[in-house]
């Protein structure tokens, strides 16, 4: 307040002093930050008292709702104040006052007829009664030109001053152009003259209008009166009305000037309060948003999440309805998946079978379907119908991808707004849920109230919409992740099962054993107890292996004779069932791994060739359900086994059907779930490969065994006067052929060649040399059977062709089975033991040359001995004599002694006995091949008839 410079008059000075005192009080009260109403009340009182006014009323302006709210505080004329002297209260207001104003109707004094609906007045006008105290809760739309007060409140006029009596024609109904041009820029408080002049001009021009517009009951008759704005920092926050109607003292510009500091203080108080309220409100909003976003980010189900968001939105805003529509791509599956609340329990796995999520499908014109609603539940069936993008308000927002606020819907005749209108909404905000430009849905919120949505509420909606979009995406991601996890878990289980089965399969090598493991695995994956595997040979089914049945059943199975007709029918069925499609549970061909295209070759020899069809069909995994269904009815043994439901699995590898697996549970009409079928098919697929490998292995082993058998003598049968015993035990189990070998073969001259040899080394490398030596020796023996010659030539050959490190010891003899004459040569081999029956002692034969392959050009010699009845010749390899027990060798002496004991036995017994003894000596630990060949001259000789 600027100091007064005018020469003071005592009264004026006194008045000023009083004003200053009051102003000081006001400042103190304002800065004390009491309740706003108390402060304003105090200000009113101070102004009244300080300026000698009769009545002071303060209104506040709510810019959010664009209304003048009031009166916030009233200082009535002292004479009719029911509250007594306010001044003396000094801020400590009476309860009646303090309760008034904030809560509009509670403080209404009895006797009045207060309008309790706070915002019910739709048009400017008087809503209060004529009594001052009953005005609490009154409000007026802040419309330009509506009245002088609104003009002041809008800053159109710096203040309003009227000393004249009211004109009854100053009624609110008076309408007219707003005289905005008269005072376009609100004058500052420092230019009272301008304001006054402006008002004066209005007085001159259209005073009645301006005056008449100031409509509230109490002031219609209050003259003189003035209205000054409570000017805050940025806007006018309230109005202060003063009157001197009781005293009738005219109000002057000076009065206005005097009011200014008080108005400033009041504005400051209101602004402070507003700021506080605004802060509170913002905090509320922010915390609401935070709550929403927190709830959105919680990993709950999408449906719950959306519901929670809607509820929260209604909670924090003044809205009555919130709804979320989700965009749909249009496929039936997605319709199923996203149909309202009824489907909440649907498992994610089933709704997300394919990788693109149904919600993310972006069809060019998706439709919108209501997913979540909160607040009102309109009783309008159309509301719940899905609609296309572009239709209805939400569809428009979805189409334009913009937040659209629609107001005054009740007056909106457009078709888009019809449903909203019928529901009774007045204002609706629609915010599209967009994720990276993709439309996920629309969030719609509306209110039935007249009050429009504030920008903040719109912001909240659109902010929630943004968050929802992210939350939906997250939820989908989560669901998809869950689905994938479930899927991976399932696949992992399958894989580990498959792995175990494969490992079991691989752990075996023989075909039989492997088939048994496969059958067990198939039963395991299908949860059954029985599995039978058939071999498919040219459309014939042959029993292969069975699992889970009793020995008796096993025998029956092995004796099973599937007629070619039955087999052909069965196979034909397996091939053609897919086309017929009436077998229940048929697995689609695309989903069954076993070959997908295993083909039966067109049969050639089976009589049913023609009926199988012209082209090869693909055998598929089949589930047969009912016993009466073909081919069950045709195949009696299935019935006999109690098969009521069976899974047929083709074992096919590279388009060749090698077998059929039948999985069943006796007496049970079992349903095989798709996963089991798929898993069993995978096992069968692997099984086919394993069987193939096993067959290849068996084949190779057969070859090897044949080879080995060919190394072993085949003519042992009849040697006239001699018996032969032989045994062979390789050191390496896996290589059935070792370095030791023997051979007995007929020579062209009617004699028998005996060979016992030991190729250095073991395993297959030695076996190769074995084969070479064996057949070279045969060749040489046929040319010239003399041992000296054979061994010498063999030595040359072995030296020439073999590894330099390799050598062969060989005993080679030519026996005349009639005379018993044995001509032999021994290339470094362990000397055979000869038990001479007649002389009753054991001796050993000579070594007549070095081992073969040591050096070429060596000389070998022949010896000739006569075997007489009862003589026993034992050929052996060093595996026998070198058998170890610790450091102790079995040795030759033990062998000789043993042979002397066993002399009376048959040669076959002798060799097996020797081998057993030696193995026992070595405690089962024989490190070298053991070969034994015993030749015994019979006791009774037959001599050929002399010609």
């Amino acid at each position, binding site marked *: 307040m600027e100091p007064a410079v005018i020469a003071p008059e005592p009264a004026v000075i006194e008045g000023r002093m009083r004003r200053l005192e009051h102003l000081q009080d006001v400042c103190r009260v304002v800065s004390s930050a009491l309740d706003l109403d108390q402060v304003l009340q105090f200000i009113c009182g101070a102004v009244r008292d300080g300026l000698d006014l009769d009545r002071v009323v303060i209104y506040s302006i709510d810019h959010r709702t664009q209304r003048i709210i009031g009166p916030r505080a009233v200082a009535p004329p002292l004479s009719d104040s029911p509250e007594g002297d306010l001044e003396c209260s000094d801020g400590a207001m009476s309860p009646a006052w303090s309760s008034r104003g904030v809560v509009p109707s509670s403080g209404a004094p009895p006797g009045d007829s207060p309008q309790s609906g706070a915002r019910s007045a739709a048009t400017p006008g008087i809503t209060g009664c004529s009594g001052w105290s009953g005005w609490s809760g009154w409000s007026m739309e802040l419309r330009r030109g509506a009245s002088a007060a609104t003009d002041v409140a809008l800053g159109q006029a710096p203040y309003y001053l009227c000393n004249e009596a009211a004109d009854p024609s100053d009624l609110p109904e008076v309408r007219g152009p707003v005289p905005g041009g008269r005072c376009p820029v609100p004058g500052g408080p420092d230019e009272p003259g301008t304001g006054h002049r402006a008002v004066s001009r209005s007085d001159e021009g259209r005073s009645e209008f301006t005056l008449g517009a100031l409509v509230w009951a109490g002031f219609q008759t209050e003259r003189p009166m003035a209205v000054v704005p409570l000017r805050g920092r940025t806007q006018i926050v309230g109005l202060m009305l003063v009157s001197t109607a009781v005293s009738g003292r005219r109000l002057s510009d000076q009065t206005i000037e005097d009011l200014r500091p008080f108005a400033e203080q009041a504005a400051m108080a209101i602004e402070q309060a507003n700021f506080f309220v605004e802060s509170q409100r913002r905090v509320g909003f922010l915390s609401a948003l935070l709550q929403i976003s927190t709830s959105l980010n919680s990993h709950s189900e999408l449906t719950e999440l959306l519901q929670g968001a809607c509820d929260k939105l209604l909670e924090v805003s003044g809205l009555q309805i919130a709804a979320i529509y989700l965009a749909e791509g249009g496929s039936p599956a997605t319709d199923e998946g996203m149909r309202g609340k009824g489907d909440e329990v649907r498992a994610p796995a089933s709704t997300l079978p394919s990788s693109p999520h149904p919600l993310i499908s972006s069809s060019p014109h998706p439709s919108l379907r209501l997913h979540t609603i909160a607040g009102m539940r309109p009783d309008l069936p159309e509301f719940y119908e899905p609609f296309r993008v572009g239709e209805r308000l939400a569809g428009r927002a979805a189409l334009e991808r913009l937040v659209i606020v629609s107001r005054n819907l009740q007056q909106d005749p457009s078709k888009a707004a019809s449903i909203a209108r019928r529901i009774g909404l007045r204002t609706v905000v629609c915010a599209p849920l967009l994720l990276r430009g993709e439309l996920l849905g629309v969030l719609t919120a509306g209110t039935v109230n007249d009050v429009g949505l504030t920008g903040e509420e719109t912001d909240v909606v659109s902010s929630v919409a943004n968050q929802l979009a992210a939350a939906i995406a997250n939820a989908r991601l989560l669901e998809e992740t869950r689905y994938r996890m479930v899927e991976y878990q399932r696949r992992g289980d399958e894989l580990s099962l498959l792995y175990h089965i494969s490992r079991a399969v691989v752990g075996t090598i023989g075909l039989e054993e492997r088939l048994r493991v496969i059958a067990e695995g198939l039963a395991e994956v299908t949860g059954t107890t029985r599995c039978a595997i058939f071999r498919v040979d040219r459309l014939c089914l042959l029993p292969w292996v069975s699992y889970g049945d009793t020995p008796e059943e096993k025998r029956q199975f092995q004796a099973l004779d599937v007629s070619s007709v039955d087999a052909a029918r069965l196979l034909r069925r397996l091939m053609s069932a897919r086309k017929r499609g009436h077998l229940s549970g048929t697995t689609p061909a695309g989903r069954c791994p076993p070959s997908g295209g295993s083909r039966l070759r067109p049969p050639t020899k089976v009589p049913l060739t023609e009926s199988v069809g012209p082209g090869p069909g693909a055998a598929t995994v089949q589930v047969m359900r009912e016993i009466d269904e073909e081919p069950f009815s045709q195949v009696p043994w299935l019935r006999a086994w109690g098969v009521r439901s069976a899974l047929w699995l083709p074992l096919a590898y590279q388009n060749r059907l090698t077998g059929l697996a039948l999985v069943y549970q006796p007496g049970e009409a079992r349903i095989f779930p798709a996963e089991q079928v798929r898993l069993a098919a995978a096992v069968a697929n692997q099984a086919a490969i394993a069987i193939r490998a096993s067959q290849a292995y068996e084949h190779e082993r057969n070859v090897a065994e044949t080879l080995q058998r060919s190394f072993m003598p085949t003519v042992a049968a009849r040697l006239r006067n001699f018996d032969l015993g032989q045994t062979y035990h390789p050191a390496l189990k896996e290589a059935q052929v070792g370095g030791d070998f023997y051979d007995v073969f007929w020579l062209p001259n009617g004699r028998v060649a005996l060979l016992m040899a030991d190729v250095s080394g073991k395993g297959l490398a030695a076996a190769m040399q074995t084969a070479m030596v064996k057949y070279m020796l045969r060749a040489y023996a046929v040319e010239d059977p003399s041992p000296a010659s054979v061994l010498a030539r063999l030595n040359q050959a072995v030296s020439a062709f073999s590894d330099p490190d390799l050598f062969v010891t060989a005993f080679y003899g030519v026996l005349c089975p009639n005379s018993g004459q044995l001509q032999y040569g021994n290339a470094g081999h362990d000397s055979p033991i000869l038990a001479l029956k007649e002389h009753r002692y054991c*001796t050993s*034969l*000579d070594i007549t040359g070095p081992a073969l392959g040591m050096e070429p050009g060596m000389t070998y010699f022949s010896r000739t001995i006569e075997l007489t009845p009862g003589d026993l010749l034992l050929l052996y390899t060093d595996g026998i004599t070198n058998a170890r027990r610790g450091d102790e060798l079995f040795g030759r002496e033990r062998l000789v002694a043993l042979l002397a004991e066993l002399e009376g036995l048959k040669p076959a017994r002798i060799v097996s006995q020797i081998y057993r003894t030696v193995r026992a000596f070595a405690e089962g630990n024989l490190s070298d091949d053991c070969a034994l060949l015993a030749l015994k001259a019979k006791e009774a000789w037959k001599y050929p008839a002399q010609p």
Partner: protein
Amino acid sequence: MEIPCATVELSREGGSRVHVHGDIDFRNAKVVREAVHSAAREAGDPIVLDLRSLTFIDSSGISALVRAARVAREQGQTLRLEGVSQHVRYLLSAAGFARFFQMGDGLACGLRIADWGSGREEGGRLGEAAAASTACTPDPQSAIRNPQAASRRVWQHACFAIPGRIELVSHIRKRVSEMLESMAPDEQLLEAVRLAVGEAASNAVRHGCRGDERLLVRVQSATDGDTLVVEISDPGPGFNPDEVPCPEVGELREGGMGIYFMRLTMDHVTYSFEGGTTVRLVKRLTE
């Protein structure tokens, strides 16, 4: 089954002929002697001893022959040998007995004495020859040329045991000689080895085992084509070979003759006494 080793056949022209078959060793030497005696008694001069079928003769057989000759001479008869092999002729002359016999012209293996080495028939040199043999000096004269063996690369080996039964001595002899025979050596070499092995084996069986059949005579023989080594072991306590005197020229006695012959025919004869008696015979097969 013993096949009679000597048969007596009376000649039409007078006189008698004794056929000797097979091996003559300590077991059947007596048979030969008795056959000659009976021939001398029953038939007149000359007594012909046909040795064509003789396959082996050892010191006992030689002794038997010498005794028979003495008996014949005492009765004024002549003992004529027919079919005398080089080996036997060599043995007889080496032992100084050649003068007791008249050797027929129709010799199957008709080398003359001179071919065996000049001066060998001189009895006075017997001891020297034996001494030289014992002293491990290879006697070039005794080495039998075997040109084939020299060029060959040969390795043969035999290792066996024989129970200490006298009838099995021939088995040892046979086994060793088979080894040598397979290399097709000169007949003299073969005979020499057979004689030496036969002497060693019979010593081992007779003296080492002393008739105990449970005892074993172990034999090892090996050859690389140049040298033959034979080891014959018996479990007996043995003896000092140096104490066995070298026989006088023309002296006929049991014992000692065998060792003498071994030393005579082999290049190297050694004894060792470790857990029994082992005689090791070494014969060079090539020059």
